[in-house]
């Protein structure tokens, strides 16, 4: 077991390093000179070159790479090339909690919607309830999240004035500001995800309900509902955990668009703006952080999965 774990961790680290390297070089392949764009209005070519030298961007690519990598190993992610050249770690440390709050909130909303819906659908299979819920779930899956976001803004922010239309409030400013700024975006992201989750719970439960030990329990005359709740739920937790891996991907993709619509400066938006602005250090740093999260999250999910059901193993 330990050997497996170590192998997976090394594997994960290699993936992260490969991604970071790939991104580093591919970023510089992107056309467009950020420095010239930044100083366009000033129109002073010498100032541009002075800045380029100062930031070390005139060195050959592999030299820049080695320098950057060295710094990363020491924990220094570099600085943004714009403005006051704020450190990348700082940008990420400020952006990260926003995305995490958003994703976490969305996940909770999704759970609150999906778990009861999924369970009830499975138990009352083929009933009206099941059909209606299934339909709603599909609806949720099929709506583009930016569309949901816009409709929510139009209804709740512009027309009803119940909730703010944009931005993010740090929790240090109080629970309600933090909460109220996050509700609409979290719903926008959470709906699609809850639909997927509900479906997964439902089918997992259905499978389990057909399995042997449930039949045995029924045969023994035990209270069906009790049996379901105790045994089925535990087993249904497996797909939920599996889905956590996808959840992170889904929630972050959703976050990118929704952060855009609500003007929340989270990790996704930082990354996208960085790419569009050619802010190399920011993109490199953000991708590094994102890939660490993903790879290790998936690693944890895999390990957990393996622990729970030793029959199911990832081939190496």
């Amino acid at each position, binding site marked *: 077991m330990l050997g497996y774990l170590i192998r997976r961790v090394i*594997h994960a680290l290699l*993936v*992260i390093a*490969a*991604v970071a390297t*790939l*991104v580093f070089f*591919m970023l510089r*392949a*992107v*056309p467009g000179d950020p420095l010239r764009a930044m100083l366009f209005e000033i129109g002073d070519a010498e100032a541009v070159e002075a800045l380029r030298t100062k930031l070390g961007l005139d060195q050959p690519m592999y030299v820049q790479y080695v320098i950057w990598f060295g710094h990363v190993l020491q924990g220094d992610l570099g600085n943004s090339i714009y403005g006051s050249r704020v450190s990348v770690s700082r940008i990420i440390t400020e952006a990260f909690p926003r995305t995490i709050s958003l994703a976490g909130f969305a996940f909770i909303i999704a759970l609150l919607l999906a778990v009861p819906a999924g369970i009830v659908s499975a138990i009352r299979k083929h009933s009206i309830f099941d059909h209606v819920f*299934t*339909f709603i779930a*599909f*609806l949720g*899956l*099929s*709506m*583009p*999240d*930016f*569309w949901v976001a*816009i*409709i929510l803004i*139009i209804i709740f922010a*512009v027309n009803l004035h119940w909730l703010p239309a944009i931005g993010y409030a740090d929790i240090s400013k109080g629970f309600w500001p933090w909460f109220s700024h996050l509700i609409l975006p979290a719903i926008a992201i959470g709906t699609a995800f809850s639909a997927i989750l509900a*479906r*997964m719970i439902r089918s997992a439960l259905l499978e389990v309900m*057909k399995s042997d030990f449930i039949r045995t329990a029924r045969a023994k005359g035990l209270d069906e509902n009790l049996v379901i709740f105790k045994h089925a739920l535990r087993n249904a937790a497996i*797909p939920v955990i*599996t*889905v956590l891996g*996808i959840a992170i*991907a*889904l929630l*972050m*993709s959703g976050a*990118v*668009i929704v952060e*855009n619509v609500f003007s929340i400066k989270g990790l*996704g938006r930082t*990354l*996208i703006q960085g*790419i*569009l602005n050619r802010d190399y250090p920011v993109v490199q740093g953000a*991708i590094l952080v*994102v*890939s660490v999260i*993903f*790879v290790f999250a*998936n690693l944890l999910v895999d390990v957990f999965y393996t622990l729970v059901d030793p029959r*199911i193993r990832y*081939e190496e």
Partner: protein
Amino acid sequence: MAQITTELKTPTLAKASRLRWLGYLWRDKKAVIGLFVLSLFVLSAIFAPWIAPYDPNAMDFQMLLAPSMDHPLGVDDLGRDLLSRIIHGARVSIFVGLSTVGIALVIGVFLGILAGYFGGWIDTIIMRYIDLVWAFPNFIIAVYLVAVFGTGLENVIIAIALAYLDDFARIARGMVLSIREQDFVASAKSMGASSLRIMRVHLFPNALAPIIVTATVSIANAILAEAGLSFLGLGVKPTTPTWGLILSDARSFFTRAWWLAVFPGMAIMLTVLSINFLGDALRDIFDVREYQD
């Protein structure tokens, strides 16, 4: 993605079974509705130039007209008829959905079978690549590719295809790995069948079921992805009307012109919904088939 655990059956698909499929399909009401709605959109896509009342890019009309007899879905901010744009939009959106998944499927399954069958270093390389791609939300990959290569239909298709092929590769590989252990492959080999024939006759058909299901889901997601990319301004070129682009163009006008927000969004939703219904029905069919044997 979740593991697909299916029972194995004898590899030939008798004609009778196929008819049974249709029977099951018919019984699932959602699937029927889904099929019907989907065909409407597909037909619109194919016959767009004939069905659409006006040229989708003609800015001939007064800006921001509400829905009326002349313009059942209204007019956008540049004076273009929304109905015509949505009909033509079906073309691109569906084309994108099909081609991205088509490419992803072909390449992904091919890679997956290669990896599973030959194992060894081929397997390792392919799986590393899959892991790399899988480490990211498809979106970020697509954004990045668009930044490098520029916007445009071809680049969007490539970007989304690259992001989705990992699912197919994994399934194919998983199938191959579990089947490889089975006796009949060993016996086929001992009878002298070539690797290629084994793959074609035995392995491929069994992977078909989950692949079809994944494909339908992926088409739905690809359409949503293209809408998202176009919405962010990273998708197709401005003159090609896709539903995501229509929504994006109209962003500043939603509060004045609700039709610009509602109709394109509904088009996306209905199309994706019908594909999902179909996919779900297919999934049920394959599951049902299993349990019957």
